[in-house]
């Protein structure tokens, strides 16, 4: 069992108090990370509102410049913070009574990592989108929203208190809403956007209540103060109040909403209605990892409850395998990768839950690269084939001229996702799985085995896409966005320089990002970074790395390589060499395949059990409650003025002022009557 005493919190004493003299003095204006994209968002927003302004075409460049500046600042900040921490107040925000929530930043190595991921991937996606979105009517609007997203996301990451984090949290939710619904004339896009916002709000409710409860227990919402008190509480050895143990459960509800975990994952696959660069940036690399970041950031709180982290681990584990099964049965390649994102986020939560915050954040880091590469690759395909995403209608793209870079980066990213040896995903996934086997906790062994099984499924569905779409005989049909007449006139247009360069960079990241977690010390540079942040802890001494095999990491690398290769092998047989066999297999398990294809009917279930009853209650309230009462009242009330009207008819001369005087007179009469009665 994990308990506060079991897991050793190595929260550095200097970290506990941000006002401590040990704080790093920043030599770079950190607020630029937020303000540069904000400025870009404003400029693009103005351009978006001026219909017909030719300068709208510069909005892509404005956005790249804004986010790029934020990235450069982040690099400087990361160098400046190093393994230390810093605190910076930008301005006072909410101060009332004893509640203090300023617009202030808290920086430690974990913040640096997140900033680099968010602004780095953000810049790349903006470059990519400047080509991808060209010719779209909402070009400027798109970049306004993307810049705004970076503003919100960096605020979320930098926040020094829970309420400011909540601001960023809701802000990214808003941008997600606006960008999913970017093609607002498509009913599916509008519905998906609405769904995303509302499902997220359910999680946010937990977050908001968690903030209230945190304040009640610790008298503050500022991380520095909270962690200091957690540390004091832990060392005092006093009984931990139940109310405190409830805090992590409320916070994790928020995390599960934002990071699309069971039972709140349903919005993410639908979110693919948004433009593909958005899917890459928001719905794969950055925003959806906010939940992981929230738990990593508030990990000391989670350690106060015996059941919090095991719950996180189990939810993550079940989500991972559940989403993988759905992903295996989809035909839309973007959707397959969407379910894959849900599944990989599950791994991250698994990692947090089994006390591998390094593994979880490392997987977040590597996943950002290879998943962004996968989505942007899909986007290139979609862009070139007029919106075609059905893997049955695309084949052998690797041999079509101009598509080599896309194919190459897709291959690399697929290998990383499948956990192929020495790619980035391989290192990070192993870190999590190995930890699951060695950490003592309720059913953690089982979590490890399920995780391993899921790794196999992941390898299979990933290469199902790759073998189908990029290898095999060359044939393709244009998607529905092709308006040039019949399909056989269709010529795909290969991606241009901006798209290709970004794909190369991300492909390189998909391979080499893993090296950040290898090497000197415990898990290399990345491990050192996390160990110097508030997410740092160590597994209890003795239990660590001894329970299973002499070196669980080596054993796990071997095991997962085997499983991964097995998955790739099955995919190769079914989807490259013998596609007919895949069809036969599908027919033999048809009910299961259809059900998985229908996403196990979870959406329908929610509709039936939640949405419809609520709407029904709304109807009942309105038609029974209000309308009946109104009608009754009017029937009753209508009679009274008619009686009065009959009595005072001579006074009615049709002049409004007359009515006014009469009313005032009536009022005076009533006042006098009441007066006399008293």
């Amino acid at each position, binding site marked *: 069992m994990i308990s506060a005493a079991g897991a050793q919190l190595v929260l550095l004493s200097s970290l506990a108090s941000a006002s401590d003299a040990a704080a790093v003095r920043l030599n770079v204006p950190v607020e630029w990370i937020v303000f540069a994209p904000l400025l870009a968002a404003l400029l693009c927003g103005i351009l*978006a*509102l001026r*219909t017909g302004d030719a300068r709208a075409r510069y909005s892509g460049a404005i956005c790249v410049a804004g986010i790029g500046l934020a990235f450069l600042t982040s690099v400087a900040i990361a160098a400046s913070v190093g393994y230390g921490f810093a605190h910076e107040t930008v301005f*006072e*925000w*909410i*101060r*009332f*009574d*004893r*509640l203090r929530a300023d*617009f202030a930043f808290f920086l430690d190595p974990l913040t640096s990592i997140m900033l680099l991921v968010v602004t780095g991937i953000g810049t790349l996606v903006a470059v990519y989108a400047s080509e991808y979105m060209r010719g779209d009517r909402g070009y400027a609007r798109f970049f306004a929203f993307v810049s705004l997203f970076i503003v919100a996301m960096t605020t979320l990451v930098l926040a020094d208190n829970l*309420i400011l984090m909540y*601001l960023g*949290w*809701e*802000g990214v939710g*808003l941008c997600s*809403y606006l960008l999913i619904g970017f093609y*607002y*004339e498509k009913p599916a896009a*509008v*519905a998906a*956007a*609405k769904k995303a*916002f*509302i499902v997220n*709000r*359910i999680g946010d*409710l937990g977050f908001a*209540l968690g903030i*209230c*409860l945190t*304040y*009640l*227990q*610790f*008298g503050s919402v500022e991380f520095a103060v909270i962690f200091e008190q957690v540390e004091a509480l832990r060392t005092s050895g006093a009984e931990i109040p139940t109310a405190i143990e409830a805090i992590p459960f409320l916070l994790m509800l928020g995390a599960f909403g934002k990071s699309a975990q069971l039972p709140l994952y349903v919005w993410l696959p639908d979110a693919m209605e948004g433009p593909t660069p958005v899917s890459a940036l928001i719905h794969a690399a950055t925003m959806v990892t906010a939940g992981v970041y929230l738990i990593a950031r508030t990990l000391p709180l989670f350690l106060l409850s015996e059941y919090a982290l095991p719950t996180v681990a189990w939810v993550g584990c079940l989500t991972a395998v559940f989403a993988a099964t759905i992903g295996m049965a989809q035909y839309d390649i973007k959707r397959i990768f969407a379910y894959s994102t849900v599944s990989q986020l599950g791994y991250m939560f698994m990692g947090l839950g089994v006390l591998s915050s390094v593994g979880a954040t490392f997987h977040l880091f590597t996943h950002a690269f290879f998943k962004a590469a996968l989505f942007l690759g899909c986007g290139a395909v979609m862009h070139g084939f007029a919106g075609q995403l059905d893997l049955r209608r695309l084949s052998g793209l690797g041999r079509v001229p101009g598509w080599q870079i896309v194919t190459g980066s897709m291959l690399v990213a697929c290998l990383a996702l499948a956990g192929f040896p020495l790619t980035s995903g391989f290192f990070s996934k192993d870190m999590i799985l190995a930890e699951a086997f060695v950490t003592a906790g309720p059913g953690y062994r089982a979590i490890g085995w399920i995780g391993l099984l899921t790794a196999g499924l992941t390898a299979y569905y990933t290469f199902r896409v790759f073998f189908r779409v990029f290898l095999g005989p060359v044939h393709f049909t244009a998607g529905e966005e092709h308006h040039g007449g019949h399909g056989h006139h269709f010529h795909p247009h290969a991606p241009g320089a901006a798209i290709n360069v970004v794909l190369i960079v991300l492909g390189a990241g998909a391979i080499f990002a893993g090296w950040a977690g290898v090497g000197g010390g415990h898990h290399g540079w990345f491990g050192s970074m996390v160990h110097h942040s508030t997410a740092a802890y160590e597994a209890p001494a003795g239990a660590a790395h001894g329970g299973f095999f002499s070196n669980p990491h080596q054993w796990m690398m071997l095991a997962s390589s085997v499983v991964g290769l097995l998955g790739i092998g099955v995919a190769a047989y079914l989807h490259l060499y013998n596609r007919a066999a895949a069809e036969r297999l599908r027919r033999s398990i048809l009910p299961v395949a259809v059900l998985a294809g229908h996403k196990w009917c979870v959406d329908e279930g929610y509709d039936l059990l939640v949405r419809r009853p*609520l709407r029904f*209650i*709304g109807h009942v*309230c*309105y038609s029974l*409650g*209000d309308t009946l009462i*109104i009608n009754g*009242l*009017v029937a009753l*009330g*209508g009679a009274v*003025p008619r009686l009065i009207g009959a009595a005072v008819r001579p006074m009615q001369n049709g002049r*409004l002022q007359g009515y*006014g005087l009469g*009313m005032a007179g009536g*009022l005076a009469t*009533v*006042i006098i009557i*009441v*007066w006399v009665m*008293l």
Partner: protein
Amino acid sequence: MLLTLLLIPILTAFAVILRPARQAALIATIGSTAAFAWSMLVWRAFDFGDSAAMQVTASWTWIEPLGLRLSLGVDSIALLLVMLTAALTPLAILGSWTAITQRVREFYLWMLILEAAMLGVFVARDLLVFYIAFEFTLIPMYFLIAVYGSTNRARASIVFFLYTFTGSILTLVGLLYVAWAHWDQYGRWTFDIAALTATAASMSAAQQAWVLLALCCGFAVKVPLFPVHTWLPLAHTEAPTAGSVILAAVLLKLGTYGLYRFAMPMCPAAFHEYAPLIAVLCIVGIIYGALVCWVQRDMKRLIAYSSVSHLGFCVLGLAAINAAGVGGSVMYMINHGLSTGALFLCVGMVYERFHTRSLDELGGLARRMPVWTAFTIFFVLSSVGLPGLNGFVGEFLTFFGAFTSGQPVQGLPTGGPLGPWYGAIAATGMILAAIYLLYFAGHLVFGAYHLPDTSHAGHDDHAHVRLPRDLCMREIAVLAPLALLCFWLGVQPGAILSRIEQPVSEIVTHVNAAADRSMLITAIDESEDR
């Protein structure tokens, strides 16, 4: 100074009557803007270092033997509501320039009289001045609905009038009872609110409970609290745009202001005792209003029901009786005024163009009206309570107040009769707000572009000024200041919060202390009985 503030709209109203109809809109706009400028001067003159005290006072003897005085003054909370009124009236008037084409002079006359009456409510320091102004808001509003409303206006105006009038008569009874109690105790009449408040607060808990009940009758209808809210959707739906704006932005706040100014300080022990009951009504209203919103097909009625839900939060904050709750509630009054007022303006602009309020007949306006869309989505987000905009601060503080009410913070006891469950259940309103407001936006703004059939929409087109498809500069000038305010208050809520901290903490202390005293008395009585 405050008397001048009241006289500016009244004199402008005379000017409107005396001049030709085509100048009416301009005169009214200038006059109400002048009133706003004057209110800025009042703001300058106000010393926020002592914001709980009545300032900028003035007092004239009226009827000596009855102790009636025409006395005016504001504390910082009243001043904020004065500012809200003075700021929104010119915008509502400016927004009506093309919408009102018949009986123009009367329209602006009633708008200006309404403004004077509303200002009178907030600046009154004398009970009867307050009550007269409070009641007098009914008359202009009645005519605004009855004359300038849409098809169902007769019914709506009557329901509006009867509902609120009946309620406020009972409020009057309660207030007069307090005045009588004062006379009984001191042998002379006075209607000074401060003096009567002191008298009322020293009454027994049972007496206070009766007074509270009487006061709540009027104020709860005005707010409106569930279950006496049914007049609001009808009135809102039928009222002309400017009427809806003022109704939502200011008239509803007369109810919450009444609770804050009279119910809480006059019957503190009873308010503390019955606050859980009030809170339950608020929470039911929050959820009920939101669910009903979700099934509306009429956009004005949808926003009207959203007010029922929102004002539930506002009163819930008062019932929390702690600094966060009451402070949040005051914030909420201002914020709701800005964002819901603005939403009614946005909807009104669409109505003026297409002559329909039905969500079935309109859709996908984003494509043709990008500027309007930007504003509408902005105000929807403000209404949803998106952090960074104004709505969030008030909403968060109210439910935070309800959640923390009466709970020890870090082991230290704090006042208030509610608890986490009140906050937690009320907070589900946040989810529901997202559901119905996005439903609204999804239908009206997004989706496929479609308009009502011209056959039944354009029949009275000749009476209307042709408007461009998207907003004209005048309309942008109406919405832009509101949007800026919403943004500014979201980023710098301290501009309000720091200014209301003193009066809020004073009333919270007052109510909680009175409740403690009353509990002590009860305990002593019981022990004596034994």
